[in-house]
């Protein structure tokens, strides 16, 4: 059900700064919207995003209701060695998803 889109270059030169693009499909319900009958729609958002490379954390984000639905986050890292990126999204109602991508450094 959960769909993560990850864009990481498959190959990079050592020392190159590469861009990582991530998208996780999620409603990101703010908790501020009402139904027609006046009930508040409960908050349901992703609260935390973490990216690790070979186990070491390289980027982390705290998300708030002001982040749009299907959070799209792009950031950078320096390519030093071949390895695996691991992505983790954690949110309300026990939401937890992971994804990974490999990169070869020449």
């Amino acid at each position, binding site marked *: 059900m959960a769909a993560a889109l990850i864009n990481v270059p498959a190959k990079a030169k050592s020392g190159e700064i590469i861009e990582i693009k991530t998208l996780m499909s999620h409603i990101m319900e703010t908790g501020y919207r009402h139904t027609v009958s006046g009930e508040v729609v409960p908050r349901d958002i992703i609260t935390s995003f973490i990216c690790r490379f070979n186990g070491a954390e390289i980027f982390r984000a705290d998300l708030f209701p*002001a982040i*749009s639905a299907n959070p799209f986050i792009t950031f950078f890292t320096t390519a030093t060695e071949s390895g695996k990126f691991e992505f983790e999204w954690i949110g309300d109602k026990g939401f937890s998803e992971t994804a990974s991508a490999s990169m070869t450094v020449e």
Partner: protein
Amino acid sequence: MQDESTRREFLTLAGGAAVLAVTLRPAEATPAMLASAIRNVAGSAAVKIGKVKLDIPPLVENGNTVPMTVSVAHPMAPEDHVKSIHVFNEKNPQPNIGNFYFGPQAGRAQVSTRIRLADSQKIVAIAKLSDGTFWSASVEVVVTLAACTEEVI
């Protein structure tokens, strides 16, 4: 005299209407909440203007998805780097938009995402450096279609 009193009445009415408009929207961050949210991050340290670049369209048609890029003109060396970027708003129900933390090997202190804006307002980005200084940038954004306020059917 007649004119004067009519004008006064009009101003009183207009003022009353403005107060009513404000009280009808309780779930709205205020500049005071913005300031306190910034204090929560920066503590008592001075927040200087500069280094940070906040890239966001000045005129937004749809407040539900506003592309935003924050970058900091600062090297990312292990001994001297940007630790985090914090983005705040003035008039959404909550003053926080997002906190982004970088490791020393991040390469470039830049992050892009899409945000929601409930009203035309000021957006503030603050960068925390490893030497403990804080730098900021702010942009005024005009929003024609607001986020968060539409009803669910």
